[in-house]
């Protein structure tokens, strides 16, 4: 059924923010195709009137009271930052929406 194209793989890579190399695109196209082909059997049950399970345990309404807990110190928060400035995470120029 599937037949995943190189273009589709490239699209997925953009969605997933992976700068895949050309040879990887090729390689993954084949492998994803195989895997999807093998697991597509699950759609046999697509029409069945069965509720989907998102959580293995039937828990509901797990909540916490609205009470302040100690935060990390800014030093701790920034301890792993590849770059920082003015107690903020420093990142390259953001292209996104203005």
């Amino acid at each position, binding site marked *: 059924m599937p037949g*995943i194209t190189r273009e*589709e*793989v490239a699209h*997925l*890579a953009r*969605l*997933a*923010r*992976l*700068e*895949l*190399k050309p040879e*990887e695109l090729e390689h*993954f196209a084949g*492998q*994803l195709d*195989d*895997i*999807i082909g*093998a*697991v*597509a*059997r*699950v*759609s*046999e*049950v*697509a029409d*069945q009137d*069965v*509720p*989907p*399970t*998102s*959580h*293995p*345990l039937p*828990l509901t309404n*797990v909540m*916490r009271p609205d009470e302040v807990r100690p935060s*990390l110190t800014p030093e*701790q*928060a920034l*301890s*792993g*930052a*590849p*770059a920082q400035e003015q107690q903020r*995470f420093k*990142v*390259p*120029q*953001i*292209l*996104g929406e203005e």
Partner: protein
Amino acid sequence: MSDPIIKLTAAEIAAKIASGELTAVEVTEAHLARIEAVDEKVHAFLHVDREGALAQARAVDEKRERGEKLGPLAGVPLALKDIFTTEGVPTTVGSKILEGWIPPYDATVTKKLKAADVVILGKTNMDEFAMGSSTENSAYGPTGNPWDLTRIPGGSGGGSSAALAAFQAPLAIGTDTGGSIRQPAAVTGTVGVKPTYGGVSRYGMVAFSSSLDQGGPCARTVLDAALLHEVIAGHDPMDSTSIDAPVPAVVEAARNGSVEGMRVGVVKQFRGEGYQAGVIQRFDESVELLKELGAEIVELDCPSFDLALSAYYLIAPSECSSNLARFDGLRYGLRTGDDGGHSAEEVTSLTREAGFGPEVKRRIMLGTYALSSGYYDAYYGSAQKVRTLITRDFEKAFEQVDVIVSPTTPTTAFPIGERADDPMAMYLADLCTIPTNLAGNAAMSLPCGLAPEDNLPVGLQIIAPAMKDDRLYKVGAAVEAAFVEKWGHPLLEEAPSL
């Protein structure tokens, strides 16, 4: 020959420390020395926290000197899978993308271990982000199986099980998303338990597939596993999926092993093509043994199990594609391409490309595909329905039996490299373990002998209903005792000395 301390079980070590026969520092030093001696060959550890371990051990000895009461595992060394955050100690999850990351907080499991005075020797190797069944996907190189260093120790928690089998630690912690505790236990001749989902807190356990991941104990004996289970289990308000109920009495069950009068299920779907003859042989003998011990064997049909692997390879990648989105090179971990010429967006893509290994990328891509518009219903949606069917099959089964048994893995440990670029072949290693993760119930693997054709360990899987983890230990302890009696010694005695 090696120090006899390292051959002791956790229960024995704890007793000797409590009585003053051994100090925690002596025990820790013996294990650190063993790691020093053999880990170059085994490569079970990614990080050994020598100073931290000795400091913890000293604190235990001081406590004892002051006459304070010690916990049941006080002073016992442990190898922690490098998926749990440890404040001040590197946590990499086997990935380049987190190389050098030092978490500012402890996982709940880490906290509980420290509170119980369990001595954390270091962090163990694993398949990157727990994705794999061989530990070959670690960015830091593979781990060898102490039974045969050219073979895989299972995965993703191969480091933890290898550390046990190589006598580098009597206890270890693993995580099990599709079998990553049980399959390594099976192929290394050790014991591993995947508790009921929600039984052990996931807070601070780096997520692979949130609805499947479960941390659990690894050990060389059923009792040791139970003692560790009791330390790490219990409700955690920091984990919304944590069970708010008393922990099943696992230690008591492990001390009172018995299958007398129990109904034990054997599922039709857990055999057939792809199963190694020696594995089936040892499994069938185990079933015979259970009968001899007084169990009633019931044949079961669970047709939906045939779809479990497929459902798993849609659900786990889907959840991981989202869970791993946070690794973007902006707040922690690796950053690649920040040379002034690239935008934040580009740096994120370059970092992820450089930081993730092929299996992780493959699963991210697969999950991105399964969740994308137009495919969601056919793939992710259907997989969730399969999940319901599997849960129902288990429910029906557990109306007829108390526990289910099966081989843990279809084959014994395969050679390193054999399945490296054949994902589908690799995925088959988890055939028997995956249904449990999808349904959320509890399971254990323990050794049931060596396969005649390759003299490598075979694992017996015991599956119990959710929140009945104690049954695993009750049955496991009985089987273990019978086997040890039959063999005349624990199975690991037969492992080659390193």
